[in-house]
């Protein structure tokens, strides 16, 4: 009996030993926690932030964001494009770096860019998002004298084209279309003929080859010009990338972050549950935990036992929580009511309760850290029930003796001030905000019913305009100020869920998007913030601070306000003393 027990202990002991040695073997890898699987690594689809991050390791773009500088910098391109404008077109000329080569040593050429654009418009492939995002690129003109130079012909004018015209993954032509079967087709022809793959055998053959490659789960079948290759991918468990021994950008010795790749192995571990992820970080099973929940972040940071093993970073972000009003709803059609309701949010208390202080208020959609672009002459939203009452009365609302508020509408009907606040379920911050608003409104006799909704149902209601008030996360960026998708009247139903839009606001939004001079754009932005401050189609409650916890063995994390909040390719491990 004792021998059997001993045998059992030996087996268990060797198992434990085997497992712990596995941990030691994987020590050089940088292990990063992801909440969800990237799901699809087809460069044409990339359905979530994680797939985008993974794709940027495997492939390169003409331009890339340098998180350190917070601006677009040349990646495959030699420099930012030169811009030339005609009456209705913008011409952007790029030249690809001489050093840029594919894995087989072939140079990356302008015809690869042309091929990429054609793939992005090829009927029969999953190109819907690409067509919508880069539909402004109408044509590409290759320079006959220089195989690396080309000009993109873009419809209309926008300062944004300078960056967005180069912010997509460049695909190699040689493995996907070795015979150049797509070359004879123009971009316009491919875009116009939505059934071209059924009519034309060359397109059909190409679509067949592309589909057969199953790039969704086998990106290794398409050699990219990025610094890493996919080593292993177990869906729902982990994705591992290995540094190429020789990457074309190594020869440049550039100080630009997109042209550096330091870790030899990047190991993304998919851990959906936050508590398990915290435990994994504390055990040393993962090295980087981005966007850690505020409560856990604060708890770990305050625990002196973690000081030697973990490091904590916070930085401003472009992610903001907003309370939005559906201006098509009769009771919310006038700005005074919206202003009154905005005074019911106790923002400092909400920041403390939901983010433990790791957020900051703003007068509007511009980040307060944006310097002269931020209109600091406007007052921050205040929690003021007296002011809210006065504004409601000014808007024609009268408090009924039985409680509640009512007014006579334009059409003679009586309107009641009872509202539903919809939000996506699952985020405790939204729950807290909804409860605070309900309590504050209740003190004035206004009935506000919180309505948590499952994510897809929430989207459905937003799109159909059947919400009254809703909580929403909006993400900005430091490069482009284009408010058209969320506030232009043309976007109502397609992204502008507030239903707001006046000729003045539309003109201002268009002017901001088209303005190239920074000084003038700042002036327009300040005017826009004032307009939104008065009209209040939405109230920015606060901008979140990005939170990141990491193992103290790491250095050069390049914690950034841009998603995902760190630069995986820049991370290094500290030298062992």
């Amino acid at each position, binding site marked *: 009996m004792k021998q059997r027990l001993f045998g059992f202990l030996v087996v268990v002991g*060797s*198992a*434990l030993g*085997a*497992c712990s040695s*596995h941990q030691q073997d994987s020590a050089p890898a940088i292990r990063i926690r992801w909440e969800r699987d990237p799901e*699809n690594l087809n460069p044409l*689809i990339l*359905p*979530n932030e994680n797939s985008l991050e993974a794709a940027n390791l495997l492939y390169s773009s003409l331009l890339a964001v340098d998180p350190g500088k917070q601006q677009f910098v040349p990646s495959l391109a030699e420099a930012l494009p030169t811009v030339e404008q005609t009456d209705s077109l913008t011409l952007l000329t790029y030249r690809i770096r001489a050093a840029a080569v594919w894995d087989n040593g072939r140079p990356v050429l302008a015809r690869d860019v042309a091929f990429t654009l054609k793939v992005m418009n090829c009927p029969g492939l*999953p190109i*819907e*998002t690409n*067509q*919508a*995002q880069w*539909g402004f690129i109408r044509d590409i003109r290759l320079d006959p004298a220089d195989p690396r130079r080309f000009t993109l012909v873009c419809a209309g004018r926008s300062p*944004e084209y300078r960056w*967005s015209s180069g912010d997509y993954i460049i695909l190699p032509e040689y493995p996907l279309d070795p015979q150049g079967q797509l070359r004879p087709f123009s971009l316009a022809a491919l875009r116009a003929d*939505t059934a071209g793959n059924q009519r034309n055998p060359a397109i059909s053959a190409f679509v067949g080859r592309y589909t057969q490659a199953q790039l*969704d789960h086998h990106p290794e079948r398409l050699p990219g010009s990025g610094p890493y290759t996919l080593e*292993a991918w*177990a*869906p*729902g*468990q982990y994705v591992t990338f290995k540094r190429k021994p020789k990457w074309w950008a190594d020869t440049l010795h550039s100080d630009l972050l997109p042209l550096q790749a330091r870790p030899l192995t990047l190991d993304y*571990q*998919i*851990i*959906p*549950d936050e*508590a*398990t992820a915290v*435990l*994994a970080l*504390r*055990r040393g099973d993962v090295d980087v935990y981005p966007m850690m929940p505020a409560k856990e972040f604060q708890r770990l940071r305050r625990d002196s036992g973690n000081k030697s093993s973990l490091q904590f970073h916070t930085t401003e972000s472009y992610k903001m929580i907003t309370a939005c009003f559906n201006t098509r709803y009769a009771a919310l059609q006038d700005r005074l009511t919206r202003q009154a309701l905005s005074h019911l949010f106790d923002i400092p208390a909400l920041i403390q309760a939901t983010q433990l202080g790791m957020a900051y208020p703003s007068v509007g*959609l511009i980040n307060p850290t944006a310097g002269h672009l931020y209109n600091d002459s406007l007052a921050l939203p205040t929690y003021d029930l007296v002011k809210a009452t006065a504004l409601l009365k000014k808007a024609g609302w009268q408090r009924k003796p039985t409680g509640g508020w009512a007014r006579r509408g334009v059409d003679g009907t009586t309107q009641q001030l009872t509202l539903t606040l919809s939000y996506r379920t699952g985020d405790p911050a939204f729950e807290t905000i909804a409860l605070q608003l309900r309590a504050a409104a209740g003190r004035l006799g206004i009935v506000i019913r919180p309505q948590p909704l*499952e994510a*897809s*149902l929430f*989207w*459905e209601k*937003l*799109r159909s305009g059947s919400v009254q008030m809703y909580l929403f996360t*909006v*993400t*900005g960026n430091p*490069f*482009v100020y*284009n408010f*058209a*998708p*969320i506030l232009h009247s043309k*976007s*109502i139903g*397609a*992204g502008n*869920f507030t239903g707001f839009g006046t000729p003045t606001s539309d003109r201002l939004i268009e002017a901001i*998007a088209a303005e190239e001079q920074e000084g003038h754009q700042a002036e327009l932005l300040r005017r826009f913030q004032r307009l939104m401050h008065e009209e209040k189609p939405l109230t920015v409650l606060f901008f979140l601070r990005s939170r990141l916890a990491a193992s103290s063995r790491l250095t050069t994390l390049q914690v950034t306000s841009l998603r995902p909040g760190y630069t995986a390719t820049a991370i290094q491990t500290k030298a062992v003393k």
Partner: protein
Amino acid sequence: MRRFLFPRLARTLPAAWGILSVIFLLSRALSSAPEGLTNIQGASIGGHAATPDQIRAAERLLRKRRGLDLPLFYITPAATATKQALAWRWHWHGTHNQYHTWLYSLLHGDLGRSFRDEQSVSMVVLRALASTLPLTCSAFVGIVIVSYWLTLLLARHRWLRPAVLAGLTVLHALPLFVVAFFLLLLLANPDVLALFPAYGLNRPESDTSWGEQLISSAYYLVLPLLSLVLVSLPSLVVQVDSALQHELKANYSLTARAKGLPERLVIRRHALRNALLPAISYVADLLPALVAGAIVVELIFAMPGMGRLLAEAAASRDFPVLLGAISVIVLARLLAQIVADWLQVWANPRIEAQA
């Protein structure tokens, strides 16, 4: 066997078809917008802003590619203008509709392709099952063995019953996530005992032997397995124990004792077989859960599996995967019912005679 199987199949297959059809029609009817375009829809300021027309065109193309542009069913109501006002009329669409396409493919063994990653649903479901089954089957075997052993122990050492049954009742009252977190914080926590991995499955490595891989895989499964066993154990033990106590008081048990049989033989040879009869249905009910996975355990221990697959497919409206996974679970449920019936008949032939 034919007499046994056919009536049951005739009852259960239409029920399965009905369940799947209702789920198909409800899920598709609820969705007017396809997932997959949220990254270009109104959640961000600037950055490749697609125009509303471009977004609508993209939506149209996506719906077409996924076959969502077809009518939902053979007949659908549609508003028709009459002389006085609008009226609802039923429109016949023939076989060119979403339901027919889905049913036709299903009958040909084609579960379609995932909306999220374009993979074959059969492959996705098989992959999830490959992760789920080792865990759930081990848990199933564990539950049955431990229950059997514990019930016999309680029958032979009755003084243990109050304490053990009280403990089991407390355990039964705890939700699965509490038990899982408790085990995680107790046995995978550097502050207490870091004996087991906190999450994931064993990674296959080429330089290790088959045996080492197996042991290592088992090591990763300890905590999830323990969570499932601890949560499912109490109800089975309490049920079998109660039945066994009842049988031990029956006349035939008294007769066996009077014949001089030792108590352990009275329990094993006489009482237990009868006491297990009611447990057959309970155990058979666990079979569909083997296939459906354990979503809570899969989420907490970051393991892929059917539970997570179902939850993620539902959240992202990946209808082909959702329906494919549900089809497999419905089939498992039917199979479990048939197996339960057969086991009941096998254990007690009088049931068939009565039927």
